[in-house]
């Protein structure tokens, strides 16, 4: 039961991007296409789950005052593993995501979950917390990418969406990212305030 709760928390009630508002850089920068968003989710989730499990399994031997450097080392190692695997087996994805793969290291979600959850909870709970938070990030990324790819490039998964429609370039560039996220957050707030009533 708790597993289900953890995953639901990650996707909705404590969604890292849409509710807490962290991990914004990759959210805005790589959501120019749905496939980029999905690959980013896979990469970030791998690091998130891996670091959560490792941190929670060594939590007893980590002295509190040097825990942050240790977390960073663990996270960075997982990120390098992702980097190398993508370079070897999915070079196109590695090229499309570019510097946002190494930047997973400084994604606040991952360090935040290590510190806030994995350092205090059991291995199994940390595993599902990682999955939940990863899915939450994926949900936000896909939602944004879906809107931006259709409006900004008139494409979906790289194929023309409506032949002949002129896309709005702004949506694929930085301003479009901000506006789309603002709109989604506004909609979330509206839904929440309605539920309260």
């Amino acid at each position: 039961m708790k597993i289900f709760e953890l995953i639901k928390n990650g996707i909705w009630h404590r969604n890292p991007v849409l509710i807490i508002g962290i991990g914004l850089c990759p959210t805005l920068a790589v959501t120019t296409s749905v496939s980029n968003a999905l690959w980013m989710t896979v990469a970030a989730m791998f690091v998130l789950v891996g670091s959560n499990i490792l941190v929670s399994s060594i939590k007893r031997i980590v002295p509190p005052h040097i825990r942050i450097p240790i977390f960073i080392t663990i996270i960075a190692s997982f990120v390098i593993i992702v980097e190398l695997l993508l370079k070897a087996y999915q070079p196109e994805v590695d090229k499309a995501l570019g510097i946002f793969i190494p930047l997973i290291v400084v994604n606040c979600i991952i360090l935040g979950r290590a510190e806030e959850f994995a350092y205090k909870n059991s291995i199994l709970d940390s595993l599902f917390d990682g999955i939940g938070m990863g899915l939450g990030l994926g949900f936000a990324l896909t939602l944004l990418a879906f809107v931006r790819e259709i409006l900004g490039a008139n494409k979906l998964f790289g194929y023309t969406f409506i032949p002949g429609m002129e896309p709005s370039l702004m949506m694929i560039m930085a301003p479009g990212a901000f506006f789309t996220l603002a709109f989604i957050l506004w909609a979330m707030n509206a839904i929440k305030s309605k539920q309260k009533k």
Partner: protein
Amino acid sequence: MFKTLIKPTLILGTIGLISSLTLSYINKLTKPEIEKRLQKKKDEAYAAVLPQQLGYIIVEKDKRVLIDGQEFVYTRAEKKDGERNINAYAFEIAKRGYSGLIRSIVAVDENMKILGLSIIQQTETPGLGARVKEMISKETFFSHFFGNAAETAEQNAQSWFEQQFIGLDCTKQIGILKKGEFSTASEEYKKELLEKNSVSAITGATITTKAVIDSIAEGIEKLKKAIDQEKHSQNAIHKEGKTP
């Protein structure tokens, strides 16, 4: 002393050691794969810029020379035309575009006319500069996933942006025309582009277009020097052979 200094250092050191050992193992596993892919990509790019139907055969691959203190790598190919050998050269060029390096491989014939161009690395903005790799395709999202297979058109190996460089003369400045893109150009416009030794810019990404053109010009300068050097060294060998 032990608790505050040595123990944390030991733990941190151990974790660092374990992680670097793991990483070096994974690096060892993936390294051949990464290199294989890079080489394959390069070979494919060479094949794209020197297509088989032109009849050129690569004779000297990845020749390294020093031009103005910097290394320049080029590949020489030739084909037989009666008595004479016609040379063609392919080389890698790079220049900073809008948001990062744009690397391409370009092939020219003896008269510095472009035989082919292939962009092998770019990180330009999707929807703008990244369209240098856009294929001409009528396929849509719906036809791909819901249509029948016959509708899905076959794809050319090169993007329209790369194709329009073929036949341009590198001894002259390559220009940019902004009357629409090559992908939707009429036959007349294509003719005009070729006459004016120009390419059509990608809408909203002139910087990207310009970077590719500039990198070609830089590469051609280096190639000319490299050819000169080669001739000189060959002449020197000839002279030495003649005068005892």
